[in-house]
């Protein structure tokens, strides 16, 4: 019974959302209904790996381009963010120096960073990576910093009493103690990176799910907008679940 409800309730939720979508499509004639969306989009889903043109490609190919871009920007973000978090965590001086700056930079939208990236790098691809990295690194920095600060006094005592070197203390105590916090940061960062990718593709017209969405909007094929939105949502959900699994493994370890 409990198992049944487990499946049934989300199904009811989805059905209600589809009904609302259908109702909206009745009131706004430009909005395709769920059925029409499926009719017009099924070629992208049923032939996910076919390349018909620069942006007219199967949904899996489009998603792949976006994911590669996200992976690059996200990696750049955590490569910068993790050491920055460790430094801020161990040094109150650095924290006081950079905290106000971080608080001001954190709420800036990716849409604001992207033009700056274009100015800096002249090309859309590095500008997109720049925007993803700059926007997604904050949770990594902040969580890593918090993780280092949350290390119990007991562990510092171990380092002191055993007279561990700085390197040994870092590798054997600080990193393992901070790891769960770090991964929570990575998970949040990846979520933001995925949000940013769509915006940056829309602005730069790069091939990918976001680029596809914007192009189809301009071509007045509204069903494909809905296809892109659903794809973005599903991929974001899967990414979050995967990071969640990695995080859970670390917690029990």
């Amino acid at each position: 019974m409990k198992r049944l409800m487990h499946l049934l309730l989300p199904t009811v939720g989805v059905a209600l959302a589809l009904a609302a979508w259908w109702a909206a499509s009745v009131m706004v004639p430009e909005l395709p209904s769920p059925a029409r969306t499926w009719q017009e989009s099924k070629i992208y889903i049923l032939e996910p790996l076919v390349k018909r043109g620069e942006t007219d490609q199967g949904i899996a190919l489009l998603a792949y381009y976006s994911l590669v871009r996200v992976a690059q920007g996200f990696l750049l973000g955590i490569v910068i963010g993790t050491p920055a978090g460790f430094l801020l965590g161990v040094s109150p001086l650095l924290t006081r120096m950079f905290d106000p700056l971080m608080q001001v930079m954190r709420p800036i939208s990716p849409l604001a960073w992207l033009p700056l990236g274009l100015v800096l790098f002249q090309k859309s691809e590095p500008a997109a990576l720049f925007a993803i990295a700059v926007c997604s690194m904050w949770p990594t920095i902040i969580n890593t910093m918090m993780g280092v600060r949350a290390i119990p006094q007991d562990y510092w005592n171990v380092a002191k009493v055993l007279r561990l070197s700085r390197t040994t203390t870092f590798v054997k105590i600080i990193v393992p103690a901070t790891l769960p916090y770090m991964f929570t940061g990575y998970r949040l960062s990846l979520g933001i990176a995925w949000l940013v990718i769509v915006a940056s593709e829309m602005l730069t017209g790069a091939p990918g799910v976001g680029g596809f969405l914007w192009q189809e909007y301009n071509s007045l094929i509204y069903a494909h907008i809905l296809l892109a939105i659903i794809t973005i949502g599903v991929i974001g959900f899967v990414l979050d679940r995967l990071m969640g699994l990695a995080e859970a493994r670390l917690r029990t370890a």
Partner: protein
Amino acid sequence: MAFIEAKGISKSFATASGSPRPILRDISLTVARGAFISIVGTMGSGKSTLLSILAGLITADSGTVVIDGEPVRGVRTDAAFVFQNYSLLPWFSALENVRLAVQAAFPGSSRATQTERARRALEQVGLGNAVSRRPGQLSGGMRQRVAIARAFATDPEVLFLDEPFGALDALTRETLQQDLLRLCSSVERPVTTVMITNSVEEAILLSDWIVPILPGPPSTLGMPIPVQLARPRTIAQLAHDEDATRVRAHVVATLTAALGGRSRRMSSKRGADSVAARALVEESR
């Protein structure tokens, strides 16, 4: 000959209100080489602070600590510690926890030698079968055994014990106390040991000398009380031993007198203090 010599130690801590709170005042202490001394007192009497100063974990506001002829600046290479809350790293196995200490103490020796040394230390505390288990998979008593193994794995010259059995149940506590006694006496060279505890019974069981810490604030040390009882000692035997009873009475009298003096000075805290004094007397019976 004095191995540890502390002179005129005072320490205050900063408080939120701004005026520093004195914890220890003008404390002097001498420990002979190879002796086991216990500093006994109630909670909040600054015992842990004193131990941290002797060990070089924190510095005193004034006064000096000299160990083996050298002034203490930071933790000595030949010192080892056991804390009340085990202080093991949960992501390492028992063996890795002990080996970390061995690696830090003997960086020159090979990894195999270090591992072997760590394994031997664990076998000595009866954990030969549990070397690969993590602290989370061990009971409180076993964890403290790992901590004791870690302390002895480096052949320390001086051992600092911060209420090492405080978190354990009575039965586990006694077996661990006996293990500690065995380790302290089985090492070829004598280990000079300073333990802090709130248990008079534990102090009598383990120590050559008992130094009562007289609660302030600031706290001061009472006269050291010798424990001249034959070894090996057991809790059961000490319960009826006349000399043990005399030592116990002496220690408890010193501590309760100090508590009484304090409660007269600070009448608002009288209730709490007399409860504390009674608890100490009862615990020592």
